[in-house]
């Protein structure tokens, strides 16, 4: 893997995480418990879709074969998406969604901070814009985790269960593959083991403030980065891609 193909693949992967999480959050639109939370969630979803657009557009430029952001978003099959399994997990109840956001966003924020200093200007520019959005998202989601964890007995028990259920998807965030290694050596990309140390400390602090227990070491599910997804993913993609598949080239 060399030069531009590393950047194409890496930008696509970053776009996949942003797009799929954004799509999951859009599923929550019109279903939030409060009007203000509704606005916040829709804002955040659009932030992620916006990031996906920038990453895909840049991937298309690096590739140089004329693929647009829409081609990346709507016209790829399931196994070509390389998003983390965590972001494709169903919304579940409010606490499930909040735990998913905290676990992902604390990783994503640390990743973006490193990417703002990477040697590729295209990636670092997008990361610099995204990092501000995600820093606010994490503020919002981690405060909610504290409220739920340190709330009533029921909210505490339910959000602890959410944490236990989603923990097994956090391992692959720190398992480098060839693309991570290439990005690191060629463009000063993230060192995932260093990132893990920071992430564990950040998450442990939030979880402690929420009076929750960190789940212990356990078997971790992986495969998202290799295009092997959980069974939920096909349904998400079917809904998201429906219009372009049914009416190819449709615009409005």
């Amino acid at each position: 893997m060399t030069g531009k193909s590393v950047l194409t693949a890496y930008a696509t992967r970053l776009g996949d995480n942003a797009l799929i999480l954004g799509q999951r959050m859009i599923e929550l639109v019109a279903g939030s418990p409060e009007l203000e939370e509704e606005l916040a969630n829709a804002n955040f979803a659009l932030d992620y879709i916006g990031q996906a657009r920038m990453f895909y557009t840049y991937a298309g430029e690096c590739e140089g074969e004329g693929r647009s952001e829409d081609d990346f978003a709507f016209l790829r099959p399931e196994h070509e998406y390389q998003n983390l399994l965590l972001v494709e997990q169903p919304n579940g109840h409010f606490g499930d969604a909040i735990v998913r956001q905290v676990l992902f966003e604390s990783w994503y924020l640390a990743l973006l901070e490193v990417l703002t200093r990477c040697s590729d200007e295209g990636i670092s520019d997008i990361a610099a814009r995204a990092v501000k959005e995600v820093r606010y998202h994490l503020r919002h989601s981690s405060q909610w985790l504290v409220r739920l964890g340190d709330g009533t007995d029921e909210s505490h028990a339910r959000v602890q269960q959410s944490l236990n259920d989603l923990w097994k998807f956090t391992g692959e965030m720190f398992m480098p593959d060839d693309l991570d290694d290439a990005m690191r050596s060629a463009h000063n990309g993230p060192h995932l083991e260093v990132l893990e140390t920071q992430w564990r400390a950040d998450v442990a602090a939030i979880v402690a403030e929420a009076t929750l227990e960190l789940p212990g070491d356990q078997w971790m599910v992986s495969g998202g980065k290799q295009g092997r997804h959980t069974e939920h993913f096909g349904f998400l993609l079917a809904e998201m891609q429906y219009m372009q598949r049914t009416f190819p080239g449709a615009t409005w």
Partner: protein
Amino acid sequence: MTKQEWPLYEVFIRSKSGLSHRHAGSVHAADDDMALNNARDTYTRRNEGVSIWVVRSDSIVASDPAESSAFFEPAEDKIYRHPTFYDIPDEVDNL
């Protein structure tokens, strides 16, 4: 089952440096941090502000509309209290 509402907060936004905070509206929130977040997400999505204040609505002491004549009307007929005899230079905005 009746739904319990979160407390109401009043939101004040400063649109740019040098101006004062102005009342923008109100939000519901369960605590102060949430009120600040909700105010940000509700009222500054289109780049409207550089600073936000939120305050619990029930912490605001307000004048009574029934007493407005006693409060405000005595000032109306005292023209000498108003600095209307000065020319304001064009360069001065926001006065």
